[in-house]
C-alpha cells in the first residue's frame, strides 16, 4: 500500500514538470500565473499524500490548509497588480 502511494507521489511530482514548463516558457505573464495556480493545487495534494506515506496526516494537512489560504492571497495580489499595470 505504501508503494502504491509512493508511485502516485512520483507521478504527480513529474506532472508538476508540465506546469513548470508553462511557468518558465509561458508566452505571456498570465500563463505563468495560471501555472503557479496549478502547481499550488498539486502541492496541496502532494502534502496530503506525504502525510499518508509518513502516517502523520494531522501535521501535514495543516500545512496544506496554510498553502491554500496563502495561494489565494498571492494570486489575488498578482491579478490586481496586472489589472492596474497592464501588460508588461
Amino acid at each position, binding site marked *: 500500500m505504501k*508503494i502504491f502511494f*509512493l*508511485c502516485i*507521489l*512520483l507521478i504527480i*511530482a*513529474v506532472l*508538476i*514538470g508540465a506546469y*513548470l514548463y508553462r*511557468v*518558465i516558457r509561458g508566452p505571456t*505573464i498570465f500563463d*505563468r*500565473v495560471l*501555472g*503557479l495556480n496549478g*502547481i*499550488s493545487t498539486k*502541492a496541496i495534494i*502532494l*502534502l496530503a499524500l*506525504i502525510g499518508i506515506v*509518513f502516517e502523520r496526516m494531522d*501535521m*501535514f494537512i*495543516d*500545512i496544506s490548509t*496554510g*498553502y491554500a489560504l*496563502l*495561494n489565494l*492571497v*498571492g494570486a489575488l*495580489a*498578482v491579478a490586481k*497588480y496586472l489589472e*492596474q*499595470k497592464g501588460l*508588461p
Partner: protein
Amino acid sequence: MTIAVEIVLLILLLVTAAGAILVKDLMSAILLLGTYSFFLSLVWAWLGAVDVAFVEAVVGAGLATVLFLVTLFGTAPKDSRLRRPPPPIAALFALPLLGILLLYAANDLPEFGDPNSPASSHISPIYLENSFQDSHTPNVVTSVLMDYRSLDTMVETVVIFTAGIACALLLRRKAS
C-alpha cells in the same frame, strides 16, 4: 523509491532557480521565486521538518511575493540591465572549485537521521526533556524557536517588519 521522489523534487527546484535567474522580466522572476518557495517547502515537508515547511510557505510563497509586488507598484517594472556583462573568467573556474570543495566537506557530515550524530545524541534530548518545564508549550519546535532562540527569531521578525515599512513608504510616495 523514496530517493526517486527526492531526485524529482530537487530537479524541479534546480530548474526553477535557474529560470528565476535567467528570465528577463522582473514580474516573471517574482512568480518563479514563489514557485521556488513552494518546491522548497515541499522538500522540507518530505524531510519531515513540518514547521520549517510551514514558515517557508508563509514567508516565502505568501509574504515575500506580496512584498515584492508592492515594491514593483512603486518602482520601474523593467530590469534596467537587460544585457548583462558576461561573468569574468576567474569566476567560471573558482565557483565550480568551491562547489567541489563543499561537496567533499559534506561527505564528513553525519548521515541524515543518524542516531549517533552529535546533534541527536547531545542537544536534542536536552530540549526534548526540559522544554515543557521551561516554557509550558506543548510543541517542542515552537519552544525552541520562541524561547531558546528568541533573539534570533526577534531579529528575523524585524527584517520582515522593515520590509513592510519600506513597502508602505513606497506606496505612500506614489499616492501623493
